[in-house]
């Protein structure tokens, strides 16, 4: 019984990517059910082995139960959806109102992002935390890139010290998130991909540094606003839909909208954005691959 049940419950838990406490509770309920059914069948005269086999069969596919359980627990409330979309809407508001060049406004948004990310992390990582975490991680990555532009080789020395630290923090948070669900990792990384796609559309290397990139960014403000609103809409859909495949669709659609926005703003000359878009789509495809692997 123990071996059969353990194998069954392991399959169930491996297929169910939700909060660990809820998952363990659901597995314990299924185990109690198996114990009751097995005991009853044994009392009817069956061997323990046979009773256990029938009990497991009567429960049905652990993957199917996990899928239905996922649909129950993976849907966040409207409150969760609004909290999740809020950081994207704040960035959109910064660009729409031209306040993205105002240090005080940007600082307030950054402070709010840090506060929300830390608050959510300490409160057991509720579903709305992941977009906030994405913005929280962005300065860590951007600082590493900016360090490389320091003069006379100092950049490389600073980067050599900073980048391993930044990578450690980044990988640690992504791993922690992916352990719960790969889709949450994609949700978290989405704002980073949008931001880098827009920056890369302004040109690479010297071209970027020698042009007035801030003015060019402002010229495209309306399209940037559209991008972040698309991301906010995708996030709301992700939180509210129950089925996993629709969650994946809600993650994949915003990058396509963003590509169109970048194309529309640059007249077709999007430099490195193609590469970033392909990379971002690959990142979004990882959850699909991981899920397919889990179901094998």
């Amino acid at each position, binding site marked *: 019984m123990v071996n059969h049940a353990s194998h069954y419950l392991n399959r169930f838990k491996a297929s169910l990517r939700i909060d660990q406490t809820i998952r363990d509770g659901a597995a*314990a309920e*299924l185990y*109690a*059910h198996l114990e009751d*059914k097995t005991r009853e069948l044994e009392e009817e005269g069956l061997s323990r082995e046979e009773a256990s086999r029938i009990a497991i069969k009567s429960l*049905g596919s652990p993957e199917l139960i996990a899928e239905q359980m996922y649909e*129950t627990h993976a849907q966040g409330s409207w409150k969760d959806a609004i909290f999740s979309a809020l950081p994207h809407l704040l960035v959109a508001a910064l660009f729409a109102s031209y306040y993205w060049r105002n240090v005080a406004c940007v600082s307030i948004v950054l402070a709010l992002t840090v506060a929300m990310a830390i608050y959510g992390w300490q409160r057991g990582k509720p579903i709305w935390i992941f977009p906030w975490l994405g913005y929280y991680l962005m300065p860590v990555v951007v600082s590493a890139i900016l360090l490389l532009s320091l003069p006379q080789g100092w950049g490389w020395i600073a980067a050599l010290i900073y980048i391993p630290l930044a990578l450690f923090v980044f990988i640690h948070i992504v791993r922690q998130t992916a352990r719960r669900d790969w889709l949450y990792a994609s949700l978290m990384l989405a704002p980073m991909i949008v931001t880098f796609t827009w920056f890369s559309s302004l040109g690479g290397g010297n071209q970027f540094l020698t042009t007035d990139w801030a003015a060019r960014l402002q010229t495209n403000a309306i399209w940037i606003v559209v991008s972040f609103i698309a991301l906010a809409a995708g996030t709301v859909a992700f939180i509210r839909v129950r089925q996993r495949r629709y969650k994946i669709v809600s993650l994949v659609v915003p990058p396509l909208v963003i590509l169109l926005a970048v194309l529309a703003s640059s007249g077709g000359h999007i430099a490195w954005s193609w590469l970033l878009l392909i990379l971002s789509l690959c990142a979004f495809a990882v959850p699909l691959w991981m899920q397919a692997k889990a179901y094998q």
Partner: protein
Amino acid sequence: MNYERELLKGNTDSLLLCLISHQPTYGYQIVKELEKRSNGYFQFKEGTLYPALHRLEKDNLITGKWQILPNGQQRRYYYITERGQQVLARKLATWQDFSTAVKSVIQPETT
């Protein structure tokens, strides 16, 4: 899709709420009770009951509490909430009306 299965799916919430409203109960007992009261009519993969129970709990219609039995076994008992009782009353009233209407159509009273 199987018609009986669709009917059961559409009425799962009412059946579960009704059973739980009679007395606090746990998953396996619900399966047994459903089978007994329906004379074996309601048969389904037993594991699919648990997502339905969790959905009702998430909607705040029932609440689950772990209890330890004298033999050390743990079971999660479900209790109906006040909101659950209100929803059940509404669902039962709707079902009665629907059932009466269907009967009137398929078995019209002869005058």
